[in-house]
């Protein structure tokens, strides 16, 4: 094939490589209803499982009578903890090295906890069976407020831990205490505060919420007794981790377990963990010898499989009168619910909360996190954010605004004054991270310019005067956020989950005609990996993206990887792709040299093939080279062209961004209107700008939801009061604001293609921007910190408490 007739631009365009707004290949099936999600699966003889759940938040289970349920037509079995004990599975390990009941073993610790698992011929019969199981409870006193969990007389929640004075993360100082995690220089920080000219201290709470992807958690387990093999189809963000955990728990050899994540309808962290439904479906399949499907309904999803946040952060900043920050001190009370099931790397029980110094050059800092048990659902997953990063960003970005208010300084000016400067990168933060790269001043100035920041402040000042004169009942807020994320977990020297090092992987196999198949250890839940990964390969090895098929989610064929969460796909798996592609290109260069009868070093790469330096007309395209690799390789070289890379990143990546929200609030109704939201993201090298912008829109919409109303709320006896989409806030197209996106590009110096990851940035940066806008709107009336979520009613309450309603 000759490429001589095509211009360089045409050859580049044919590849649809990095930087191209390539349309998604996934959409062909999704727009036609031909996606393949777990609940679409129908296996011969498949049964259906459903849970009996506790209506109480804390109770002893006195008796479970399943006799009536077993008489319900279609019901085949009812599993309880007693049956699971027979296979040593009444409890399971959590990702946080705690243990969790699979089915209630003597007591329940949160509302809707799994008590029994009914297996029936179809989902209706299973539901009938659930109704017929009789459970006798004895109610126990509950602990809902995490601030009361460590009271000396607080009820004992985890009786299985009585007498255990230390856990997986060190000493426990109370029966409801899980761990204390601390980082930084306490003495130095105390000294900075002792000598500070100005300090602020505020309890900044980030309420409990839930990732709530539109598809709930679900699986189909199928055990083949003859072969002794287990196949589990499931909504797994981390299929290989599920396989390893399933093998360790079930003792089925790992090569006889096949875990398949088909198309996943959104994850946002919800689908990282292992849940009782998976274990029960597997056990039920082993017991019955038939495939068993388990599908959560929405109430079960919101109230049991994971939650996010519930971090209560007492944040203190020390500064000079001129607004130079001199120290940061944070204490967090972390509500982990009834079992510690946070999805954090083993050595980080508070995730990467140490990013709490944010984008600022703090000379010294100290942070402490106390995890406590309460009668709430377990979880603590990273809802579209790297682990505990959104909490950290909220604490520091609210803290900076509170400091600006105390100093009487503009919050933008305070940020610009304290940013880590471009020449300080790589930057060692006071809490131990090495920020890889950044150019914060450029990004912030671009954002301020884009929105006309000075004019907005002038307009706000005029509106405030008009408000004071009684000419308007509307107040205006300008919310700033400048966040730095830490994503791409992570280097195996400090990142593992249950002992599994957090590398990721890619295998690329070229076929003789020049097409390719790439298999990955990561797993898309909507991110568009099939599209973007092919773009990386296209740019690296000169094969059109259209000729590359990306496969994920089948543990039989994919190389081992840790999966997709914490924005790790591009930083880790994306790097593995580039490294595997470069191995291929190196071999291709040897083959091309042989074909062109020159030395390898005489060749140079040219878009989609190699050419002889100085003689561009002498060239071989990759398509020609691939054919030769199989059919006429150089003497002594083995045929074929494929490569695998397992990439252990040397560092995390540090995307950042500047977000600005302009909001108007009617003090008489509490109704807010987002007038404008501008988001500048710097995620390093941009692989597909269309997909990046789409991710930013989606993440901002989630941030908007969280900041403005989305929460999981419990009453004083542990009932979830908003456990369905009836009253759990998911914005519709009507409420959702318009998003403006922008970018700067500061490539990561240690990533093979300079990419940093972006999917979670808008959730991390969006929440503080919204909250700061509401707080900024009210601040001139004397408020200091108004907690989230900021729904219309709460805004009205704030106005009311300020005496604005006469």
């Amino acid at each position, binding site marked *: 094939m000759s490429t001589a007739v095509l211009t360089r631009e045409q050859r580049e365009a044919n590849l649809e490589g990095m930087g191209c707004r390539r349309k998604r290949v996934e959409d062909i099936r999704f*727009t036609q*209803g031909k996606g393949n999600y777990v609940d679409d699966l129908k296996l011969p003889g498949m049964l259906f499982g459903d849970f009996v759940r506790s209506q109480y938040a804390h109770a002893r289970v006195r008796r479970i009578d399943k006799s009536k349920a077993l008489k319900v037509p279609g019901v085949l079995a009812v599993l309880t903890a007693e049956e699971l004990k027979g296979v040593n599975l009444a409890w399971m390990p959590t990702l946080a090295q705690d243990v969790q009941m699979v089915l209630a073993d003597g007591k329940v610790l949160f509302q809707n906890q799994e008590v029994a698992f009914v297996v029936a011929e179809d989902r209706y019969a299973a539901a009938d069976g659930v109704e017929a199981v009789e459970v006798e409870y004895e109610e126990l006193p509950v602990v809902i407020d995490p601030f009361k969990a460590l009271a000396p007389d607080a009820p004992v929640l985890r009786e299985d831990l009585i007498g255990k004075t230390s856990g997986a993360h060190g000493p426990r100082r109370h029966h409801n205490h899980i761990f204390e995690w601390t980082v930084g220089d306490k003495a130095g920080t105390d000294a900075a505060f002792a000598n500070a000219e100005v300090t602020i201290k505020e309890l900044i709470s980030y309420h409990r919420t839930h990732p709530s992807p539109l598809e709930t958690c679900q699986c189909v387990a199928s055990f083949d007794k003859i072969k002794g093999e287990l196949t589990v189809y499931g909504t797994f963000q981390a299929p290989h981790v599920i396989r390893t955990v399933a093998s360790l728990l079930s003792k089925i050899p790992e090569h006889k377990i096949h875990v398949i994540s088909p198309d996943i*309808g959104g994850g946002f962290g919800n689908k990282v963990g292992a849940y009782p439904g998976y274990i029960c479906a597997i056990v039920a399949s082993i017991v019955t010898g038939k495939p068993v499907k388990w599908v959560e309904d929405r109430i079960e999803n919101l109230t049991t499989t994971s939650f996010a946040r519930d971090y209560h952060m007492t944040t203190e900043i020390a500064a000079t009168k001129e607004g130079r920050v001199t120290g940061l001190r944070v204490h967090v009370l972390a509500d982990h619910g009834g079992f510690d099931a946070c999805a954090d790397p083993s050595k980080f029980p508070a995730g990467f909360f140490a990013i709490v110094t944010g984008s600022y050059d703090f000379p010294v800092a100290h942070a402490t996190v106390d995890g406590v048990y309460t009668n709430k659902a377990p979880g603590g997953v990273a809802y579209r954010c790297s682990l505990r990063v959104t909490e950290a960003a909220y604490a520091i970005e609210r803290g900076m605004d509170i400091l600006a208010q105390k100093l009487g300084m503009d919050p933008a000016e305070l940020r610009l004054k304290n940013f880590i400067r471009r020449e300080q990168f790589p930057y060692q933060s006071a809490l131990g991270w090495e920020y890889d790269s950044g150019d914060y001043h450029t990004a912030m100035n671009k954002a301020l310019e884009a929105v006309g920041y000075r004019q907005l402040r002038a307009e706000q000042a005029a509106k405030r005067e008009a408000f004071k004169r009684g000419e308007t009942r509307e107040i205006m807020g300008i919310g700033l956020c400048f966040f730095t994320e830490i994503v791409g977990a992570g280097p195996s020297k400090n990142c593992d989950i249950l002992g599994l090092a957090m590398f990721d992987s890619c295998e690329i196999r070229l076929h003789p005609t020049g097409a390719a198949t790439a298999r990955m250890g990561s797993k898309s*839940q*909507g991110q568009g990996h099939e599209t973007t990964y092919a773009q990386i390969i296209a740019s690296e090895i000169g094969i059109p993206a259209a000729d590359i098929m990306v496969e994920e989610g089948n543990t039989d064929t994919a190389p081992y990887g840790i999966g997709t969460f914490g924005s790790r796909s591009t930083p880790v798996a994306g790097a593995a792709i580039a490294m595997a592609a470069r191995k291929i290109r190196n071999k291709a260069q040897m083959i091309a040299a042989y074909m062109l009868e020159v030395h390898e070093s005489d060749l140079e790469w040219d878009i989609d093939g190699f050419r002889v330096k100085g003689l561009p007309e002498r060239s071989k395209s990759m398509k020609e080279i691939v054919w030769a690799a199989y059919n006429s390789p150089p003497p002594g070289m083995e045929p074929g062209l494929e490569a695998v890379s397992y990439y252990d990143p040397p560092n995390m990546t540090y995307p950042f961004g500047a977000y600005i929200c302009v909001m108007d609030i009617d003090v008489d109704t509490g109704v807010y209107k987002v007038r404008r939201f501008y988001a500048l993201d710097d995620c390093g090298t941009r692989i597909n700008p269309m997909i990046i*912008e789409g991710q930013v*829109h989606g993440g901002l919409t989630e941030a908007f939801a969280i900041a403005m109303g989305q929460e999981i709320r419990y009453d004083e006896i542990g009932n979830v009061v908003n456990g369905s989409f009836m009253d759990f806030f998911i914005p519709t197209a009507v409420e959702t604001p318009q998003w403006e996106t922008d970018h700067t590009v500061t490539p990561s110096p240690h990533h093979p293609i300079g990419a940093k990851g972006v999917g979670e940035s808008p959730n991390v940066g969006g929440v503080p921007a919204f909250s700061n806008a509401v707080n900024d709107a009210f601040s001139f009336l004397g408020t200091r910190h108004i907690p989230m979520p900021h729904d219309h009613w709460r805004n009205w309450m704030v106005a009311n408490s300020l005496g604005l309603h006469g």
Partner: protein
Amino acid sequence: MAKAHVKMTVNGKEVEGLVEPRTLLIHYLRETLSLTGAHIGCDTTHCGACTVDLDGKSVKSCTLFAVQADGASIATIEGMAGPDGSLHALQEGFRMMHGLQCGYCTPGMIMRAHRLLQENPSPTEDEIRFGIAGNLCRCTGYQNIVKAIQYAAAKLRGETFAEAAE
């Protein structure tokens, strides 16, 4: 449980069979007819992932019994592409404007948009946003869904939608 006889037209094809009276239409479509395009997202009629077209109206098939659809004419996402496999203007619009990510809400969203454009071939942005307010999306923030529907509306009117996805 005694079964009831139902007969309906689905994507132009007559189907009939026996169902339990309590069988939801979504389960009949997905499990009996193997039309798995429409999805279940919330069980409480809020998310719209199960939206199909029933006798010229958008309905949430998780909140109708199959027996209530007896005699009805139903259209689902599987019936949208042309007989030659060509994409419907809405399907094309969603792809061109990046109006989907995980794809779970997409079939319901497209079926709702289909009915909206039957009722109003030239909707304003506000009319589109209001018109799809019964369908939730967790991934896109709706901005590109609005554009996808504008793209399709223009195409169905014989015009060209000029804006790019963002």
